[in-house]
């Protein structure tokens, strides 16, 4: 189509704007990539000499290793709990009317607007008041509370799009409710469950603010370990960690994209 000068102007300014915005999004990661190879602990652009020493340091630093293990443990257990509770609640929410449903729903969804630091502080006070130790279970509890709304949301959305006829067909074929649940409902909800689990794991793995309130030295999560590192050392080790982190997350998303198509998972098409 022939374009008017205005169209050309729009096209070009659109392209430039898009490039600038994408640049803004990517800039920190590019800069961090460069910084991570800087041989000196002191920042300078462009770096005067290059080395991999910060990568070595990142891998050797004990707190990162421990934090990583903790975070993986917490994310795995927390996401499992959140999936069980969240999927069950989404089902109940979608299928039944019962008293206090609205109240229960607003309480469980409230972490979406309650700031994470408030949640962390609340549970810290609660556990102190109950003289419970600051164990890993406390951290897991906080994470479950925080990721639960996301799980409920994704499962609920797929339940809403779920074709009740499948269940009715199964019932008419003689399947009792539990059998319907296990052979029809659950298998068909897999995409929703996967996206719920993905959110739960990733959000839990990244959760920082609330965790900061409830962890101690032993239960330190990976993000808290990174935060402490920045507070204690002024060197680019964290840049190296960040680079590794970005690469892993991007790779993970690419894999998910390959199998599930992110556009679909996020409902943006």
């Amino acid at each position: 189509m022939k374009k008017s000068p205005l169209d050309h102007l729009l096209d070009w300014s659109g392209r430039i704007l898009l490039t600038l915005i994408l640049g803004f999004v990517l800039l920190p990661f590019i800069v961090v990539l460069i910084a991570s190879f800087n041989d000196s602990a002191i920042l300078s652009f462009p770096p005067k000499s290059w080395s991999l020493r910060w990568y070595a340091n990142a891998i050797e630093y004990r707190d990162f290793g421990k934090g990583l293990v903790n975070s993986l443990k917490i994310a795995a257990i927390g996401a499992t709990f959140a999936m069980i509770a969240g999927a069950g609640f989404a089902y109940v929410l979608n299928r039944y009317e019962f008293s206090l449903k609205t109240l229960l729903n607003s309480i469980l969804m409230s972490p979406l607007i309650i700031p994470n630091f408030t949640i962390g502080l609340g549970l810290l006070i609660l556990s102190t008041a109950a003289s419970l130790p600051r164990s890993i279970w406390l951290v897991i509890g906080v994470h479950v509370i925080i990721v639960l709304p996301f799980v409920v949301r994704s499962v609920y959305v797929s339940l809403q799009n779920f074709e009740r006829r499948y269940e009715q067909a199964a019932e008419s074929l003689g399947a009792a409710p539990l059998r319907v649940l296990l052979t029809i409902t659950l298998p068909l909800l897999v995409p929703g469950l996967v996206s719920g689990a993905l959110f739960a794991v990733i959000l839990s793995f990244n959760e920082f603010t609330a965790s900061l309130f409830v962890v101690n030295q032993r239960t330190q999560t990976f993000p808290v370990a990174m935060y402490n590192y920045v507070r204690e050392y002024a060197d680019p080790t964290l840049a190296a960690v960040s680079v590794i982190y970005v690469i892993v997350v991007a790779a993970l998303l690419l894999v998910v994209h390959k199998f599930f198509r992110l556009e679909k998972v996020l409902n943006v098409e």
Partner: protein
Amino acid sequence: MTKRPFLGWFALPSVLIAFGIAASFIAIVQYSLRAYIPGSLDPGGFTLENFTTLWKAVYGQAFVNTVLLCFWTAIFTLLIGYPLAYAMVRAKSAKLRSAILLISLTPLFLGEIVRTYSWIIVLGNRGFVNAALMQTGLIDAPINFMFTMTGVVIALVHFTLPIVVVMLAAALSHIDRNLERAATSLGAGRVRVFATVTLPLSIPGIVAATSTAFAWTFSAFATPQMIGGGKVQTISTLVYQVGFASFNFPLAASLSLVGLLFTIAVLAIFNTGIRRLEKIGGHSQ
């Protein structure tokens, strides 16, 4: 007929969690009404003193800072996020669409620390931006981003951008393309189509995205803490400081409580205002 199979079993775990949430909330309310005994972790008797303490300038300033941060962050995130979402939904090539999606999404899953740290390196006095500007001779003294509102807002915009983009893209992608085509066939050019059709129909998405951006910014801790460096105090940094530097949990609790009520109030005002706006603007089906 079993009318509600599984109700009990499926609801049980979430009921327990709801009890946990409610209990911690009650704990906060309770603590906010207790006196602080210096050097002790157990709170004293009931008092309203914590709330009067909050009238002090430091805390007031933190509230003002937080609101300003939320406000500017929301505005800039929208301004930057809308074009990005639009491009993500409307780009002609599927590859470009996927690329934009992936680029916008990756930061969402990086967490606060990695992103904030990265911005420190970008914005510092010897950071990338200043180094680049000085080397090209555009400036001769570094621009201060660190420990300023500007710096915190830049990092926070980057922090909230992905979620806003995803929400806006969801809204935009659900606008019927035929509506835009109809407008075009009626003689409207691209700008007009956007202003009279696309934009009004994406208002619900804008609303949802803005409230989410607000809640996220309000909740952000690492970014104002690390980039604000104590110069830009927000409610979240104060709560941590009051709680963990002086272990004044009652004051931290009352600060949290007021902050929470404040968030709810803002979101409520926002939603009613928007509902009115929607009534004027209509909604997409």
